[in-house]
């Protein structure tokens, strides 16, 4: 058993990381391109990568992609700032004070299972079509991710650390500010990352229905024009941007909480 495992890891060591990352996408793209050129499938429904690439160029040069992206990003930023500023303090108090949590919890447990998209009709009634409705939908999805992770973070603070602080004479104020708060940060970051992920999911759906700009709108607009190449450009943009933002948050977490990342290794 042992020699097999060793040769396996040696193999992994020999393949450059960059190669391992791109090998599968490249194979898929090549087969896809060949399939489209040989008309194995209808290019109207699934255009070849070369067409998607030139469509992406066209959208980038005209500034259209960037305009829609900026609209979506602005909405996500507004929604997450509001979600964080409400959910973090609320979650913190719910985690700290049992009775407070019990009062709030029953109410939230009924709201939580409702998919954010089910709020769209009501959002349109309340806020009309446009910016506010989209922000509202995004806000709802981000809110619960942040709230639940904040509560879990407060609860998950190492009991020994709390006891150590109390035995060193910590007052309630010191305990909360210097022990519970920093102890909650790793879980808060997890909440932010999940919130950002679900933000992209719900904002696209909200923009499909309730907006005349943003990446979600762009995708639905080009469906009406049967431009599957442009639809795919929109989809891939969301994938790439979502990935980059998640990595950005991960990088930020490693910079701000080096002790946490190192402990996990």
């Amino acid at each position, binding site marked *: 058993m042992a020699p097999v495992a060793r040769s396996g890891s040696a193999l992994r060591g020999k393949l450059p990381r960059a190669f391992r990352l791109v090998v599968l996408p490249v194979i898929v793209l090549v087969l896809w391109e060949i399939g489209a050129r040989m008309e194995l499938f209808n290019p109207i429904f699934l255009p070849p990568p070369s067409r998607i690439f030139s469509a992406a160029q066209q959208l980038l040069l005209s500034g259209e992609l960037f305009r829609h992206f900026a609209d979506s990003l602005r909405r996500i930023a507004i929604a997450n700032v509001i979600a964080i500023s409400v959910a973090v303090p609320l979650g913190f108090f719910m985690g700290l004070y049992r009775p407070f949590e019990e009062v709030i919890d029953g109410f939230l447990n009924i709201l939580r299972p409702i998919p954010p998209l089910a709020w769209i009709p009501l959002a349109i009634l309340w806020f009309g079509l446009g910016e506010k409705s989209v922000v509202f939908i995004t806000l709802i999805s981000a809110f619960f991710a942040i709230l639940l992770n904040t509560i879990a973070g407060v609860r998950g603070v*190492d009991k*020994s*650390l709390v*006891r*150590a*602080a*109390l*035995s*060193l*004479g*910590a*007052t309630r104020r*010191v305990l909360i500010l*210097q*022990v519970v708060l*920093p102890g909650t*940060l790793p879980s808060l970051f997890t909440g932010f990352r999940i919130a950002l992920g679900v933000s992209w999911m719900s904002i696209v759906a909200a923009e499909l229905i309730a907006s005349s700009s943003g990446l979600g709108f762009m995708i639905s607009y080009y469906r009406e024009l049967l431009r599957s190449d442009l639809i795919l450009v929109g989809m891939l943009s969301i994938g790439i941007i979502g990935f980059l933002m998640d990595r950005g948050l991960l990088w930020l977490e490693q910079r701000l*909480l*080096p*002790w*946490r990342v*190192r*402990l996990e290794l």
Partner: protein
Amino acid sequence: MAVKVGIERVTKQYGGEGDAHFVLALDDVSFALDDGEFVSLLGPSGCGKSTLLHIVAGFEDATQGTVRVNGKPVAGPGADRGMVFQDYALFPWMTVMQNVTFGLRIKNLPQRECERIAREHIALVGLAGFENRFPHQLSGGMRQRSALARSVANNPEVLLMDEPLAAIDALTRNALQEEILKVCDARDGRPRKSVLYVTHSIEEAIFLSDRIVVMTPRPGRILEVVGVPFARPRNDATRLAPEFQQLAGEIWSTLKSHIKPN
């Protein structure tokens, strides 16, 4: 000698009597820790030694009975009882210096005074030069040294230690035992620390203690209190002395009949 910690008829139950999960963790336990004395609570798992220490620390309440420190009943955790944990319980987001000054800063000592006291204690446990390291950058032994410095620097009335060396490798453990004695000893005009120490190692208890409270499980009771006559300072020669081995053998033979196979 003045009594530092008085444990008076302490009983601790978990669950109600008659419940399926009813446990009598401590059954009418009494003894006194004198000022400047080092006492170990020794016994197998489940004898209630850690529960008793937690009651003294104020982390748990006694079902019956009272714990007094300097005559005052304990009503919760406080800086008069410093705690050293098995898992170190260092704040991972603070450097060694910040950890050691934690209690001093709460007392509102001036910054410079905090750092002076911290430096002195960090040096005392042999960690001079590591002030700005984070706990994750230290070995287990160094983490426990930092935790020890943090508790002692806070100058508590009594030091409580809950199996502090149980997670440390055997070689480092011997070195740390001497370190603990050194740190708790009288120095610079300060009297010797009063220490209540929980362990399940007979040799460790003998090496460190003035007296050993031997406890038995289910229900947790005091079996006997053994005085340890060896002179201080203690060192490797103490461990090798025939009297040391003989005492260890005696304690083992009294405990043995009370340890049931699981």
